[in-house]
Every structure is written in C-alpha cells, then in structure tokens.
C-alpha cells in the first residue's frame, strides 16, 4: 500500500470559550489515502468542520491542538492554497466582492505557480471553462454579484484548484444550494478530483449526498470519530449504534409518510 497523504494521530482540538474549554475534537486517528474521496459526516457540533480546518492548517490561533498530522505522500508540510484547496459553504465569504473574477481565480496561480500576469489570466480563463462558467472571457472581468449562488461556488472551486493542490477540501460546499445545483456541483467535484488525481475530503451533514460521492465514509459525533470504512459497508452494515441511528433518521423517497394519501 502506498503512503497515505495525511496520517492523523491522536488529533485533539480545544477552544477556550467563556473562561471554560470546549473540546471540538478528541483523539482522532485516521489515514487519508492519496487519491481517495473521503466523506466526513456528522451533525452540528460533531467536530467535522474543525477536522477539515485542522487538516487545512486554518484553525484559529486560539485553538489548542494536540496530536500529530504527518504528510508522508507529500514529503513536506502542506501550504494552504498551494497544496490544499478549500471550498466553503458560502462562496460569498470566500470571494472578494470588489475584485474581478479573473484576479481572484488567477491569484493562486500567480502566487504559488509563479505565473506572470498574462499566463495567470490564461490559466484563470481555462479554469473557469473547466468549472463550466459560460463565456469565461467575459467572466474574467465580471464581479461575484453578477453570478448566481451555484456559479459563484463554481468560481470558488476554480480558485481553490488554481495552484494544482493535491488535496481538495469541500466543507459543506453544496449545502446552501438548491437540490439540482447541489447535484451538479457534487458531480463537478467528482470529475475534477478524478481528472487531476486529487484527494477529496468532503465534509457534509447529508449522509445520502456523502454516499453518492465518496469511496470511504467517516462518521463523527461529539468530537470523536465513531467509525470509518468503505462507504457501501458503513451504510449497509454499520458497526455503531450512532451510525445506525443516523441512517434510520435519514428521510428519502421510501420513508413512511406522516400524513394521509389524500386530502382530508
């Protein structure tokens, strides 16, 4: 077996809050395999987003971190933006409203790939075409507010992969989008990760969405890793009660209806 991209051992994260301490993650052991699509699922407060931030090196400075994260396949400590691209839930908060799209998408290519202004702009246009922004040439000179939420998320993804990262982290990246756009963005992430041989860490509260997009599934609850395994195994034969409960409370087209068939 090849070296994992990230080897997480005994990872704990604690925040100071109101004089007390809040444990956000406790004793996480996990290998992120190079080239895999790993979904992290959990409810609010499970620690799933803290885990994503910890891997990306984006924890707030007041966080107290224990344990280790090594990067055997990378061979060095990763640099956020270069080795790791991150896409958040709200593209409005990752895009600068007063900067043209071209400058924002090109920034990673200029800073981390050392491209000149012209070459970086070319790369930005290619990236916008890859994430299927219509008329990428015109989009380079446009501003974020001129695009829909789904298109803004495509632009944020283009910026996140601009420096050819080995790891793409999507933290609830489709949660604010409507169902049809969500499915399109999930398919786009899948395609980009496959084409560029990236590793994907897909953080979501939606177990069904996680199931459609991942090779392996890690279930977080109350700051701990409850179980991890091949996605199909975790869903069909969950080992832990918590995972069973998550699956049982999931609502899909086969769930029992709560109201009568016809109007009373």
């Amino acid at each position: 077996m090849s070296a994992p991209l990230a080897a997480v051992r005994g990872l704990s994260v604690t925040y100071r809050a109101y004089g007390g301490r809040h444990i956000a993650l406790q004793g996480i052991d996990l290998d992120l395999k190079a080239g895999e699509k790993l979904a992290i699922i959990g409810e609010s407060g499970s620690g799933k987003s803290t885990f994503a931030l910890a891997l990306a090196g984006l924890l707030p400075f007041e966080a107290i971190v224990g344990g280790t994260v090594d990067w055997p396949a990378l061979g060095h400590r990763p640099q956020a933006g270069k080795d790791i691209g991150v896409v958040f839930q709200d593209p409005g908060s990752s895009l600068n409203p007063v900067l043209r799209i071209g400058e924002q998408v090109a920034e990673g290519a200029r800073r981390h790939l050392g491209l000149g202004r012209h070459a970086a702009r070319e790369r930005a246009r290619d990236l916008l075409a890859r994430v299927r922004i219509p008329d990428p040439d015109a989009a380079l000179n446009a501003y974020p507010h001129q695009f829909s939420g789904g298109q803004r998320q495509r632009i944020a993804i283009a910026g996140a992969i601009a420096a050819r990262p080995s790891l793409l982290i999507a933290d609830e990246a489709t949660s604010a989008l409507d169902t049809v756009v969500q499915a399109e963005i999930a398919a786009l992430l899948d395609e980009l990760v496959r084409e560029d041989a990236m590793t994907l860490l897909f953080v979501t509260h939606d177990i069904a969405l996680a199931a459609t997009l991942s090779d392996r599934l890690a279930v977080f609850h109350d700051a701990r890793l409850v179980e991890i395994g091949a996605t199909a195994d975790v869903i069909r034969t969950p080992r832990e009660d918590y995972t069973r409960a998550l699956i049982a409370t999931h609502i899909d087209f086969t769930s029992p209806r709560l109201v009568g068939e016809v109007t009373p």
Partner: protein
Amino acid sequence: MTNAALLAVRNLAKTYQSRGGRVTGVADVSFDLHRGETLGLVGPSGSGKSTLARVLMRLTEPDSGTVHLDGEDWLALSAGALRARRGTIQMVFQDPLAAFNPRATIGGALADPLRIHAVVPRTERPRRIGELLERVGLPAALAKRRIHEVSGGQRQRVAIARALATNPRLIVLDEAVSALDVSVRGKILMLLAELQAREGLAYIFVGHDLAVVRVISHRVAVMDKGRIVETGPVTDVVADPQSETGKALVAATPRLF
C-alpha cells in the same frame, strides 16, 4: 370544492423592477388549499417560492390576481382590518435564532403575539403561554429560560408555539426544518403532522428537499421561473414527475441505498 377551500389563490402575478428590466417574481399562480391539508412548495432558487409566501403574508403586494381566505378577499383588507386578521396566517422560518430577539425569554417571545393580537386578557397570558409550550411538546417551565439557552430543536418548537399563539388557520413553513440536525428534524416533522391532525391546521411547506416534502405534504406544487409547472398528490409527482423541473428535482435528490 372551490367553495370549501380555506385558501383560494387565482392568477397571482408579481414582477420586480431591476436594472436589467422587469424580473418575474410569480406569474399566473393559482391553487386551492383546504383545511387540514399541506401543500408542499418546491423549485430551484429564484423560482418564486419566497415571493409567493411573502404575498400570502401580505408583506409584498402583488401586481394582479386574487387571494381568498375563508371566502374573504384577503388582498382587499384595509390596513386596520388586516391588522385584526393578520394572525390568521402565520409563518415559521429556517433559522429560529434569527427569528427571535436573542435577549428575550421564551415566555416573553410568546407573550408578544398574545398581547399584540389581544388573544387573551393580560391575566390569562401566563397560563396560555404554558399551554402553548405544552402543545409543542415543551415543559411550561421553559418559559423562564432565554432563547439562546435552549437547543436548536427546542427553539424551533418555540417558533411553532409562537405561530400557534394567534390561532392561525394556515402556517407557512419556510424551510422550517432545513437547518435542523436529522435526529431533530424527524421529531419536528412529527409534531407538525400531529398538530395538523388534532387541530385541522393547513400548511404551506416550502422546502428544497423533495424527500422531506414528500413525508409531510398531501399535495405538491413544483415552481420554476415564477410559475407552477406541475401540481398533484405528492406521491404521484415523486413517482412519475411530468414537468422537466419535477424530473430534475427527483433525479437530483440523493439516495442513500
């Protein structure tokens, strides 16, 4: 059946002015809603779901069309008559924390509608607040706690209790369970179904997740670009959608197995 409808909406239209010209909010929307019935409202972002909800709440005046509530012309009500009748239609939003004054106690949040709509005399209020909390499955003692001290699920129960305070006939639930954890979401859906069965409430359930809309709704209206492009019993629409929008929604809903 039309005479018996609690809510009869006919040919509702609303456009907004923007720099690029006029933008369609809703166009030619018509439907009936009966007592004890839930109409699910689904569609992509910008399809007109929220505009429709705002028009029904009379937060936005439509360009044309009619709305009758219990046979009465809802859009023709004068400001004074509307104030007296506003409590007939209530709304519950996605984020209960944003829907409350964070410093208020739960009892205070429930006392406001009772006072503003003069539902019960002042001396009756504490007892009524206790009843409202019990109707949504919360202990009456919770009235003394502050909104930010209780969990997200409890907070959404308080939002439902506040909506119930004015004895509404119809509650518009705008993504009301979308922000809740799955373990809590099912319990809130159960509460809504129980309240409806017991009290004959009608709901308009605005949602992005067709699977969730299916478990709580009798009928569903699929909206796109301001229009209702498909409507029918929710089980029929999910099993065999006729419109392109309906087909896309069914296909895009992620499946666990």
